[in-house]
């Protein structure tokens, strides 16, 4: 192990900022981060060991105690649940003789849940040693269990288990006309970089991550900073449950995305870029490295790009299972090898970003669109969409519909059009923008996709009449409590309190006042949290409460007070100890007469 760690650290130039990447490789090799490795790394980098432990304990894919040689994770996204994830996981656990959250006695396999893996159009999904598994069913689980029990190396597993479909169902302006490699850079140099920035400004392109900041303005701010060392970062940490468009863009249009980053680098004057790829998309890593290699060979990346004296290269950094790293300042912290805790703002990344230097962070789709605008011009883009939301939006559609997948629409399109196209019928409601977005009911399907109406990073989850609102709220609320980084009080404590309060009502223990308490708590978390995660964590509760207040009230018991726990359930341990289970060993809640 000693040699392995030493070589690994050397490969990363013993740099502290590479810590997360180093730990990922140790986890992949040993299936945990051994104490010995921590001690050795703290000497080599050199950093306090507590820094290393802090990072290990922050990311879901890193562990201080051994996992199985086959680390199985099953996606806990609501869309996976809608496709029978729970029963399948139980079946898998039985087949492999391992409990969820545990390691099998022989150490061969471990099984656990994980947050949405971005395979919502082809779930239930999972991962084995970080590699995506799709379309899980009993037959595939039988095969997986068999491969594991035979100790078949992952490399020898049949490729169809790992097959990830791009399922582009409805291409639009951008997806129909991918650019020719190098075309955006050539156009930009021909037109002039300043004129190209003006073109992007004129196109009205706004950030596609959901917040909608004007792209040209961000680039201009960064370019205007006095610091000469600048960075370009592509945010491919799409962790919002229900989103998978960046995965598809990176798999089918990687050249165009990297070209957008290079274009940005030329305009702002950056020499180094990063693609922050979420750990769940490990399967794309080698492929994307190959694309980068091809671009260097073609003179589109590296030194003296297109003989225009532009030097720029791109590194790929992998995440390790933390939704919060999609927040741009948390993502930068993660790039620096730290726990992904959002920074205080101001200062903003555009002035103090990666290593404190001016940094542009944009979504995959933003870079993708920017390169198309550089080729086709501002008008081509701006003629589509609404006045405030120019161009198109790429949606990831999943849930109850005949044709889940990737759809591209002009901004201004109504939700009803989207539902018609993907074959959704008997629709109860739609979650726009994932759990952090908005739940809209069937009364609102004439609302439009646009920054001025329904702003979205692209997640669209459809629910038909057979679904239960509380299942949705329950899943999403648990998700946020799990993903809170824990930095600030309102989010760290508040999301867990919200989870408890939702559970209380969900499980039928709610009484008068509990819904009001739920709303008060939700507002508190929304207003006072440090970053977008906390500020939106109560959205599932607040947006459904607004639309279905009677549904919440009907869940309440008709008594004035109900304790926050199940009294009879709490006596279970006592009953087991006393080895009795007669009627007198049970208690009902006081006042519970119905």
């Amino acid at each position, binding site marked *: 192990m000693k040699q392995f760690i030493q070589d690994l650290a050397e490969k990363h130039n013993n740099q502290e900022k590479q810590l997360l990447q180093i730990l990922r490789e140790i986890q992949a090799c040993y299936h945990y981060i051994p*104490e010995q490795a921590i*001690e050795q790394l703290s000497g080599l980098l050199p950093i*306090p*060991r*507590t*820094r290393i*432990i*802090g990072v290990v*304990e*922050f990311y879901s894919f890193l562990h201080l105690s051994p996992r199985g040689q086959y680390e199985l994770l099953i996606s806990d996204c609501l869309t996976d649940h809608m496709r029978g994830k729970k029963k399948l996981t139980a079946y898998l656990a039985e087949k492999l003789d391992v409990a969820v959250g545990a390691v099998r006695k022989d150490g061969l396999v471990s099984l656990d849940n994980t947050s949405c893996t971005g395979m919502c159009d082809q779930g239930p999904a999972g991962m084995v040693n970080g590699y995506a598994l799709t379309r899980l069913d009993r037959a595939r689980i039988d095969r997986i269990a068999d491969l594991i029990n035979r100790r078949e190396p992952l490399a020898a597993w049949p490729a169809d288990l790992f097959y990830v479909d791009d399922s582009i169902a409805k291409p639009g302006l951008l997806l129909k006309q991918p650019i020719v490699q190098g075309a955006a850079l050539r156009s930009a140099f021909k037109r002039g970089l300043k004129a190209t920035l003006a073109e992007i400004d004129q196109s009205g392109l706004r950030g596609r991550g959901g917040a909608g900041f004007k792209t040209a303005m961000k680039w201009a701010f960064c370019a205007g900073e006095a610091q000469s060392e600048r960075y370009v970062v592509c945010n491919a940490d799409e962790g919002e449950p229900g989103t998978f468009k960046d995965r598809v863009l990176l798999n089918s249009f990687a050249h165009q995305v990297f070209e957008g980053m290079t274009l940005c680098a030329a305009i702002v004057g950056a020499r180094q870029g990063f693609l922050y790829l979420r750990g769940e998309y490990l399967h794309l890593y080698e492929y994307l490295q190959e694309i980068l290699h091809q671009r260097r060979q073609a003179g589109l990346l590296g030194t003296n790009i297109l003989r225009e004296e532009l030097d720029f290269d791109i590194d790929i950094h992998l995440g390790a299972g*933390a939704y919060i790293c999609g927040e741009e300042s948390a993502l930068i912290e993660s790039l620096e090898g730290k*726990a992904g805790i959002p920074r*205080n703002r*101001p200062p903003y990344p555009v002035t103090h970003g990666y290593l404190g230097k001016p940094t542009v962070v944009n979504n995959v789709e933003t870079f993708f669109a920017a390169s198309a605008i550089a080729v086709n011009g501002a008008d081509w883009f701006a003629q589509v969409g609404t006045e405030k939301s120019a161009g198109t939006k790429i949606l990831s559609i999943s849930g109850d519909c005949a044709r889940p997948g990737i759809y591209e629409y002009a901004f201004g399109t109504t939700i009803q059009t989207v539902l018609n196209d993907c074959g959704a019928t008997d629709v109860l409601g739609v979650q726009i923008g994932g759990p952090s977005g908005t739940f809209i009911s069937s009364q609102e399907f004439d609302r439009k996709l646009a920054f001025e109406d329904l702003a979205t990073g692209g997640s669209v989850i459809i629910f038909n009449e057979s679904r239960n609102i509380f299942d949705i709220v329950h899943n999403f609320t648990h998700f946020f*409590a*799990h*993903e*809170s*980084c*824990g*930095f*600030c*009080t*309102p989010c*760290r*404590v*508040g*999301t*867990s*309190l919200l989870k*408890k309060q939702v559970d209380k009502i969900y499980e039928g223990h709610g009484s008068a006042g509990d819904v009001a308490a739920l709303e008060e708590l939700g507002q*508190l978390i929304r*207003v*006072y*949290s*440090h970053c977008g995660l906390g500020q939106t964590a109560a959205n599932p509760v607040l947006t459904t409460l607004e639309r279905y207040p009677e549904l919440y009230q009907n869940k309440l018991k008709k008594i004035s007070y109900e304790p*926050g726990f199940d009294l009879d359930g709490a006596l279970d341990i006592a009953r087991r100890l006393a080895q009795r289970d007669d009627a007198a060993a049970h208690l009902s809640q006081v006042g519970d007469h119905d």
Partner: protein
Amino acid sequence: MTKTITIDGKTIPFEEGQTIMEAAAAAGVYIPHLCHHPEYAPHGSCKLCSVTVNGRSCTACTFPALEGQEILNDTKELNDSRRRITQMLFVEGNHLCPGCEKSGNCQLQAVGYYLNMLDNHFLHFFQPRELDASHPDVLVDRNRCIFCTLCVRASHRDGKDVFAISGRGINKRLIFNSESGLLKDTDLDVNDQAAHICPTGAILIKRTGFTVPIGERLFDDKTIAETSLDYERGDHDG
């Protein structure tokens, strides 16, 4: 001309580079806080110092004072919210004021009094948290840790990095920089600033318990608003 902000309608001067908290303290306006300490870089995590700046919620300890800001601080709405946030800290850990040596000197308790906190409001988590009594001079009771990171920041300045916060979300925990993970095997010395900076009773000095009797303690005569302003305006000795 001096630049000014207003806090609750009162005009307050500030210097370029000051945070809202610093400008307020200099002008004798108390903004409740726990993770903020005037001698350390602001952290902005406890959120007690949340104020409303031109209609938007901001932490006063991190947000720069800028010309013309209209700030709300001592309002019912903000103090109600701060009380809720304080209650969150109380139910997250295991705080038993009557039996705690820090009682009367504890900033968390004093803020609770200042905000008229009469109960815990939320459900208790009752999380099991470890106590470390291994060090000859210093006791750490994680039950009372509120993750303000003051000990982390102080120990970094001491050049020792004894303390760190690990974990994520509600599972955060205070850890120590030693191979055994125990406090006795760290470089911590009883005279380190880090051993004395805890705003709650999570880090206590051994053999000093109750040498100052209840009734003669820091917050027995003065509210936290008074002591805090005294300190921050430099009226403290040393």
